């Protein structure tokens, strides 16, 4: 079995009296794509924010590459990147300028070569010199993905990465993620509300509800456990249950 690259133990985040993430534990192994599923407000984004170090956990531990996150933030974040539909890049900069700034933040070499490569792979040539504020939402998402792939991270957090892409670019993006994962053994944490995509992309799925893990396993195992044939039905079942039981993992 591959080595665990991301280890999360009893991770909890409270904002005042509200518990956004409630003692979750999981691992992501090298080269694995782990899908994080759950309704809005389930704690998916807060979990990703804690894994990126922009929110401090209330309790629990995060280890990446075997290193405690709070003591090795810089070393870890040099090898981690993210893309989110909900986070934009500076609008007054061109696509290429944004990528150059990102390259500087991660201390990358061969910057022009890397940018040429990622721009070609994500079919961004025609808007490479365009101001970010003039991009369509699909182009904006591709820029965010290009920023994430540019540093060739070992761990990638993708928060609904294909939400605003047309089916063609979305399929190409998924294929690219799979290809990069295959060739570099990149570890990916993936969230999406598209159940078909989740099944296609994820080796394993964690289902979160009200900050707690209520199901974990392969898509087929979760469907079987819930007696459903469709992951969407599983999602609706969990999301509509007032107090879903916590499944043994």
């Amino acid at each position: 079995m591959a080595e665990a690259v991301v280890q999360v133990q009893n991770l909890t985040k409270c904002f005042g009296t509200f518990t956004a993430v409630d003692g979750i534990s999981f691992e992501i192994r090298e080269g694995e794509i782990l899908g994080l599923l759950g309704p809005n407000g389930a704690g998916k984004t807060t979990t990703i924010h804690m894994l990126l170090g922009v929110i401090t956990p209330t309790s629990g531990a995060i280890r990446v590459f075997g290193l405690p996150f709070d003591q090795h933030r810089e070393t870890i974040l040099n090898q981690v990147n993210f893309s989110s539909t909900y986070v934009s890049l500076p609008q007054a900069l061109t696509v290429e300028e944004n990528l150059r700034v990102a390259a500087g933040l991660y201390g990358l070499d061969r910057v022009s070569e890397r940018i040429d490569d990622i721009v070609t792979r994500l079919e961004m040539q025609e808007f490479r010199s365009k101001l970010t504020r003039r991009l369509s939402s699909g182009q904006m998402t591709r820029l965010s993905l290009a920023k994430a792939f540019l540093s060739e991270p070992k761990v990638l957090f993708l928060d609904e990465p294909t939400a605003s892409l047309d089916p063609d670019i979305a399929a190409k993006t998924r294929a690219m993620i799979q290809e990069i994962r295959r060739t570099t053994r990149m570890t990916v944490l993936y969230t999406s509300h598209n159940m078909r995509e989740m099944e296609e992309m994820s080796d394993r799925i964690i289902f979160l509800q009200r900050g707690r893990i209520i199901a974990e396993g392969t898509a087929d195992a979760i469907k079987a456990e819930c007696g459903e044939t469709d992951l969407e039905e599983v999602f609706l079942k969990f999301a509509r249950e007032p107090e879903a039981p916590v499944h043994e993992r």
Partner: protein
Amino acid sequence: MKFHRIAALLSRHLYLYKRSFPRVMEIIYWPFVDLVIWGFITLYLERFKGTMPSFVTFFLGALILWDVLFRAQQGITISFLEEVWSRNLMNLFASPLKPSEFLAATMLLSIAKVVTVSFVTVLVALFFYSFNVFLLGLSLVPFIVNLIVTGWCIGVLTTGLIMRYGQEVEVLAWGLVFLFQPISCVFYPMSVLPEWLRAIAWMNPAAHVFEGMRRVITTGGFPVQDLLWSMGLNALYLAALIFWFHRMFAVCKEKGLLVRVGE
């Protein structure tokens, strides 16, 4: 601290000036208008000069130096606001960038702003009012450096407050510095202040700079004591404020504010 990350953040802000006319206006137009208005007021007042040796030197010198402090503060605060407005804080702080590197980049940017603004104001003063600020002598240089550091102190304070309390307090980016103006004794000596306010002004490093500037003009000597006070207070405040900024940063991460500021 890694220079490549500081340079990346610097380039991110310099790209903005490449094609943004309003941003260029901010560092050329406003200092120009400020100096022209104050220049004419000074010329008018000079008609009534009696005991004061030179209105032009006092007022225009003071105005140019005040602009140094103001732009140094803006260099830090506006750079942070640019990140808030473009909702870029998440991209920055989910990268290996450290808060200290963020501050270092904004401090370097503020020096670039100060140099540009000073170039404009010095030229306007020279061509419109035949006032050469360099006639005040090289002794002004360490005072100018101190004004930049005071500007950084106010900039770090303002930025920390905006980070912590969000865009509701955004107005502080332009307003807070003027709270310090009356006790900076920019256009008048500290002695005109009431005694209780003088004690507060004494704790303001900028007040010692402007007192020093007036001593340079009136006596031609080098006011070591003013410089030492200013340096000491600046060192103390800057160290304390950088520590406080890191604490605010940690509080914002605990409260999840870093990803919400700007929403």
